[in-house]
């Protein structure tokens, strides 16, 4: 097991707004509310925040959030590209900046009105500027009406079915499991609304093979974190969660949500590439991981992630799910907050918050004695992953 060094990054505060379909306020206000909550949770005054990090598609300037939480001077600020794939970028940047002594207290936030404002799933054009790299990239898809994340990820799901024999029912069991966790999470949009496999099979087709209940929600809300050094965390009256290992990954086959050109698009090869490093850095094995939040924009994406991180063998994830191993009481409960399918879609950050709660022992769907957890960012994009551990573990 790796030792905690004095400058190792530790998450000491989490904050969030309610998750809804229409927040009734600006994204900036959402970001400020969640950030203030995270600082209060940590017991750190905003004046101490000297680093801020968020990721692409957030419409709030770092300096506006920093000023309003009472910050004095920013020594470090960063913003990571690639949407949900960037969800762990800010943690990676905080980890590096803290270790290098570049700053002392990093605020991470993501605030969005993704349901009442610009809906990612609607095929809306985010930027028509001919110099914008997204627009240049999507020029090979949008003119054909190939315009939504569901349709892009459907291509990888179809290949996974072809390669490994997975079925729509296999995807459905993932949705049922997450909606079960959501049903007992009062913060979840789908609180007290579980579904059955029949409900999944009867839900409308969105982009074959993806049905409505394979798709994450579109949500309004914000989530924020405060990250500082282990040395500082020991002086705070909080249960810190240390970042045991974190990294990002992009490969030559990586594309902006359209990973169509690799040799084998059934898998998300970024996860295969990262897993070994992360376990080695953390000094852990798959068997040591007690709980996971795996990026679930669409249910099929869970399957190759379970394989990449060694919870089951390649091609066996559907059986692993069918045997209940990712569900309540299973070997590696996945997305115990209900995930982005059941709780809310805050671009991956609500999953990181659930992992912090699990390692503090405060999740509403607590896994007993959780010491170590895995969390991933978006699938089918340049992405990232992290292993988080209890401070004492």
């Amino acid at each position: 097991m790796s030792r905690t060094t004095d400058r190792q990054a530790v998450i000491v505060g989490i904050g969030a707004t309610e998750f809804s379909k229409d927040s009734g306020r600006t994204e900036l206000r959402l970001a400020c509310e969640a950030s203030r909550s995270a600082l209060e949770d940590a017991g750190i005054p905003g004046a101490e925040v000297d680093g801020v990090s968020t990721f692409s598609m957030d419409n709030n300037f770092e300096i506006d959030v920093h000023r309003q939480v009472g910050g004095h001077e920013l020594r470090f600020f960063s913003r990571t590209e690639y949407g949900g794939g960037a969800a762990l970028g800010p943690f990676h940047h905080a980890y590096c900046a803290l270790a290098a002594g570049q700053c002392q207290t990093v605020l991470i936030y993501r605030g969005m009105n993704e349901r009442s404002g610009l809906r990612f799933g609607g095929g809306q054009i985010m930027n028509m500027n001919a110099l914008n790299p997204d627009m240049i990239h999507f020029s090979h898809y949008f003119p054909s009406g190939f315009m939504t994340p569901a349709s892009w990820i459907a291509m990888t799901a179809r290949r996974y079915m072809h390669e490994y024999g997975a079925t729509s029912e296999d995807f459905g069991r993932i949705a049922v499991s997450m909606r079960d966790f959501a049903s007992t999470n009062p913060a979840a949009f789908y609180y007290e609304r579980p579904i059955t496999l029949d409900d999944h099979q009867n839900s409308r087709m969105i982009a074959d093979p993806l049905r409505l209940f394979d798709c994450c929600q579109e949500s309004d809300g914000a989530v924020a974190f405060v990250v500082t050094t282990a040395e500082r965390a020991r002086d705070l009256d909080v249960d810190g969660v240390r970042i045991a290992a974190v990294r990002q990954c992009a490969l030559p086959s990586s594309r902006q949500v359209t990973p169509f050109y690799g040799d084998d698009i059934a898998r998300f090869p970024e996860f295969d590439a990262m897993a070994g490093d992360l376990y080695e850095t953390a000094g852990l094995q798959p068997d040591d991981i007690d709980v996971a939040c795996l990026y679930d924009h669409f249910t099929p994406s869970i399957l190759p992630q379970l394989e990449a991180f060694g919870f089951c063998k390649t091609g066996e994830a559907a059986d692993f799910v069918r045997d209940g191993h990712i569900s309540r009481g299973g070997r590696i409960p996945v997305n115990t907050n209900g995930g982005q399918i059941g709780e809310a879609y805050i671009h991956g950050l609500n999953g990181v918050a659930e992992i912090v709660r699990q390692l503090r022992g405060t999740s509403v769907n607590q896994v007993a004695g959780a010491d170590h957890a895995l969390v991933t960012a978006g699938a089918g994009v340049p992405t990232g992953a992290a292993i988080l551990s209890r401070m004492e573990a």
Partner: protein
Amino acid sequence: MGAKSSQRIRPVENYDSAHFWQGLRDGKLLIQECGACGLRRHPPQPMCEQCQSLDWTTVESSGRGTIYSYTVIHYPEIPPFEYPNAIVLVDLDEGVRLASQLRGADPDDIAIGQRVIAKLVDVQDDLTLPVFEIAP
């Protein structure tokens, strides 16, 4: 969906990609080929990722290929497209993969491994796209 546009979104045509879009208007499906090492690539990009050469030429594709993956889009219905809208990833015989629409097939009959052929279709004024059909 915002404004009820009845037009498809037009692609960006720049120094790297204009040959592809102009080629379609001229009735040719052109694939980039590295002038130094011969590696073919699509979508277009300025530098060969294998040998870093900036020299490139094009080869004309036969339009024939094999379905590598596909989806049939039902929702949301975005104007001016007709639904369901079948999209295929096709491994062209010339060695690159290309995404486009598949027309004239029953969605239930589409399968990975099927042979397809691209027809170059003027889908609207000044926009020509390769549209696949199941090969006879």
